[in-house]
């Protein structure tokens, strides 16, 4: 299908924290670009084009904020564009960079950015404005309530409960404790999760992600560039995006296209990536999954959408020790995932970087032994936009 394969040769990320008062936003973005270039061992002069991920302008408080950070990115005078697919932005930007290279016009593309979600003290009321002007803004929808509704439905349909969600939190926090870059690094117990205060039932504080600040970046290259320079990238073997209806009310009832409890549109996106990569049995063929799930409940149905478990069955597998480092089958979010670190604009990018690190054996204490094939996914909007990727250490048949 494509002229040339595309690989990842560099990934850099900050140690994520709540706030960074030592830098302006452009300075923070510069860190993302610098770390990516250093890790790739190239200079900005080697970069042919730049793709920039930035989700709502309102969170950083500057309209078309990408124009402000051009210099910080080193993008002056280079082809440059910005992607905004909501929470999926970081990964959509990587896919956009993939297209830049697969078009044949560019060999080296930088994707780098940052976020400082806690800088806006009104984050959730900003996010209230993503809802329909006429119908939904008077009602207090935001990211927490929308995911609470989905979690509640999942529990109802699959006879699941808050303990299942808590198990996800325990696993992710354990993984994050092994990840020096993660924001939340302390482990938790099921009891602690269940006792934490409710934000919007059934989502409790310890089911939810933090508002993170930090930067990250990736460098993508064409196969011909990699070969010419003797590089061994993490190869992008498949990619897929899909969108679902914006209206959550359309995702319930007998005539719904897909239930709000599930992530059927994400399953379609995964299938597109799997088809391209030649994956027919993810449970057997995939070693690691870095899948975007800002809340514990989300991870359950994303695991299922990825084909790693049947619908409603991921809690039982999790209780069995699956998905955990050192456990059986696919290891899910060995980095701690979005639940432990969520700098919105680059969260999706970090999933790709972590997946690349895994297949290259560079994940340190949270390395999955012998990982060769990884999947990564991101979600944007109200569970509306889905991006997925398959990453592999080589170009042989999976």
């Amino acid at each position, binding site marked *: 299908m494509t002229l040339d394969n595309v690989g990842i040769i560099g990934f850099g990320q900050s140690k994520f924290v709540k706030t960074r*008062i*030592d830098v302006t936003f452009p300075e923070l973005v510069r860190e993302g670009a610098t770390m990516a270039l250093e890790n790739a061992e190239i200079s900005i002069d080697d970069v042919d084009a730049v793709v920039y991920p930035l989700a709502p302008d*309102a969170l950083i*408080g500057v309209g078309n904020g990408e124009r402000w950070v051009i210099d910080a990115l080193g993008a002056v005078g280079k082809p440059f564009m910005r992607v905004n697919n909501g929470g999926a932005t970081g990964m959509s930007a990587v896919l956009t960079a993939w297209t830049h290279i697969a078009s044949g016009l560019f060999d080296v593309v930088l994707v780098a950015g940052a976020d400082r979600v806690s800088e806006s*003290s*009104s984050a*959730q*009321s900003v996010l*209230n404005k993503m809802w329909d*002007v*006429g*119908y*939904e*803004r*008077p*009602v*207090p*929808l*935001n990211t*927490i*309530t929308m995911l*609470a*509704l*989905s979690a*509640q*439905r999942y529990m*109802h349909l699959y006879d699941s409960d808050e303990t299942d969600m808590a198990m996800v939190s325990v696993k992710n926090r354990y993984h994050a404790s092994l990840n020096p870059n993660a924001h939340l690094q302390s482990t938790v117990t099921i009891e602690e999760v269940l006792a934490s*205060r*409710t*934000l*919007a*039932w*059934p*989502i409790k504080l310890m089911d939810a992600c933090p508002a993170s600040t930090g930067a990250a970046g990736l460098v993508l290259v064409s196969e011909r560039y990699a070969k010419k320079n003797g590089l061994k990238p993490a190869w992008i073997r498949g990619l897929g995006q899909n969108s679902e*209806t*914006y*209206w*959550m*009310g*359309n995702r*319930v*009832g*007998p*005539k*719904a*296209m897909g239930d*709000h409890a599930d992530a059927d549109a994400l399953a379609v996106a995964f299938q597109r990536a799997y088809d391209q990569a030649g994956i027919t049995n993810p449970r057997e063929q995939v070693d690691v999954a870095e899948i975007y799930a800002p809340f514990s409940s989300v991870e359950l149905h994303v695991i299922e959408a990825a084909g790693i478990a049947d619908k409603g069955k991921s809690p039982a597998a999790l209780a069995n020790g699956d998905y955990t480092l050192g456990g059986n089958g696919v290891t899910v979010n060995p980095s701690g995932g979005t639940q432990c670190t969520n700098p919105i604009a680059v969260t999706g990018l970090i999933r790709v970087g972590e997946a690349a690190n895994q297949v290259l054996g560079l994940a340190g204490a949270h390395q999955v032994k012998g990982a060769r094939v990884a999947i990564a996914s991101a979600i944007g909007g109200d569970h509306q936009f889905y991006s997925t990727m398959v990453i592999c250490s080589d170009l042989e048949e999976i």
Partner: protein
Amino acid sequence: MTEAKFYEQTWDLQYKHALGETTSRFLEGLTQQKIWGRRTTDGRVLVPARSYDDQTHMPTGEWVEVGNSGTIEMFTIVYEPFKGLPVPPYALVYVLLEGADTALVGYLKGLDLKNQKDAIAALGIGTKVYVHFSKTPVGSAADYWFELSK
């Protein structure tokens, strides 16, 4: 070394959003204690009413008045305060009204939310509710809410 300084900024952008005829009619219907839906080319009744359907990518046609009672399809109870949003706790529900194929969002009022366990049990999926209309409607989605059927 200079101490880190901060600069506070607020965005106060104002908008006058055109609602279009369909949304306008739906909101007007609230002032008449009616909930309107629109039928898609594949026969589904969309509530709230919309002039096009995003699944078929076709305009909707027939206006359909749906019932003022229905069942809860999903709910949550919010405890966390958010700037610019109401003082918690409050319950949010999506309700499939009689004759509608998509659910309508709204507050659920009149239920004691102090005991979480009891409140959750009272709001289970499938619970019957009915629509209450404001006696002083302003023509916005704040003009209606749901209450449990007795």
